[in-house]
């Protein structure tokens, strides 16, 4: 594996490691972005109104139970495409539940007394949401996005099963060819990427979460 990694030939070119990493990141962020766009508003709505929580949480759980491989295959067969779309569908289905659930948890965990105080001082529903609930729920919202990212990064390897690139290419090709160095390289890079992204979100958390929420 070390040989594989240190062979500069393997790093460059549009089949090289850098290209694969970029592809992998592209799949990840596209799927993550879409998951956020869908999951976040729903989570905010449910958390703010505290209505529909049961449904949303259970739907979220059910979605977690969807096997991504099967989903991917269904998406390929149904869309009759082998490109990016089916992969996106499978990854987004994976990304939404954690985002939805922790956004809801973040909002519903806000001390009722704080919301009471906000209402009592004349904040409108929207102001309560944007000035109180979201900032206070931020740590959990970020951690939801964070765990969605981890799952998407690691599952994006399956894109390679339906002809796409990304680091999964190494894992899948390595598997097919019983080329262990290549496969290990792929797996390791995925894990590394996950760690880096995780650190990135830790940083984002550090920036967006008020220091007041980190005391004690």
């Amino acid at each position, binding site marked *: 594996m070390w040989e594989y990694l240190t062979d500069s030939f393997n790093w460059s070119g549009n089949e090289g490691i850098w290209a694969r990493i970029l592809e992998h990141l592209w799949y990840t962020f596209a799927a993550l972005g879409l998951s956020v766009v869908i999951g976040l508003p729903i989570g905010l709505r449910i958390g703010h109104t505290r209505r529909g929580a049961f449904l949303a949480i259970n739907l979220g759980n059910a979605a977690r*139970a969807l096997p991504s491989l099967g*989903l991917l295959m269904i998406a390929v067969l*149904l869309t009759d495409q082998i490109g990016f779309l089916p992969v996106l569908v499978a990854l987004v289905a994976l990304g939404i539940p954690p985002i939805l659930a922790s956004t809801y948890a973040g909002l519903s965990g806000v001390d009722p007394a704080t919301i009471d105080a906000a209402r009592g001082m004349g904040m409108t529903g929207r102001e309560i949401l944007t000035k109180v609930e979201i900032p206070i729920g931020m740590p959990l919202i970020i951690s939801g996005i964070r765990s969605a990212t*981890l799952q998407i990064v690691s599952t994006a390897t399956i894109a390679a099963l339906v002809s796409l690139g990304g680091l999964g290419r190494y894992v899948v090709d390595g*598997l097919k060819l019983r080329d262990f160095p290549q496969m290990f390289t792929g797996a390791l890079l995925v894990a590394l990427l*996950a760690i880096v992204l995780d650190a990135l979100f830790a940083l984002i958390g550090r920036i967006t979460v008020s220091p007041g929420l980190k005391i004690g």
Partner: protein
Amino acid sequence: MTWIGDNLGLIWEQLREHLYLAIVPVILGLIISVPLGYVATRYSWLANPLIAFGGILYSLPSIALFIVIPAVLGTKVLSTVNIIVALTIYTVSLLIRNVIDGLRSVPPDVRQSAIAVGYGALHRVVAVDLPIAVPVIFTGLRVVTVANISMVSVGAVIGIGGLGELFTLGFQKDFLTPVVVGVVLSLTLALIADLILVSLQRILTPWARVATPVGEVA
């Protein structure tokens, strides 16, 4: 639809294998996580590294883990042990956090009382800490069980995947039915397992679902 009728035997076989492959790791993972979590609460400097390490393990792509394991353990490539070990690793890496959180969720005054009435250290863990940690541990247990059930199918890529084999089988023939059957069954299995865990939790924690006393405003 006729495909289903013609292949009931196969479907049943894969369903059983799927269940086995998913559940055994949950049980093993629980058996490993609880003592590990306990140690991490005793030596609290261990907790964060353990949780972080769990996070890294969890981000290893499952396909890779499934293949690496026979190389590491020397098991046969088609042995179910590979899947079971891999999923056990995932289970522990997720569950460890819940076990630690659960043990930490014991209110300090309850722990104080337990010490003061004269429970020995180990006895206290078994008789007081663990029962109180059950709800938090079960939250994690439910997540890993569901995740395992969905992850088993990835094993199909290396030929041991329970219902996942229906996916590959259908996919090779450009044939939706087996894939849908596999997904639906896998989903159903996950939901039933979840339901069983919820019921089990209710049975184990009758105290956690009692009404708050009259006169107290929630």
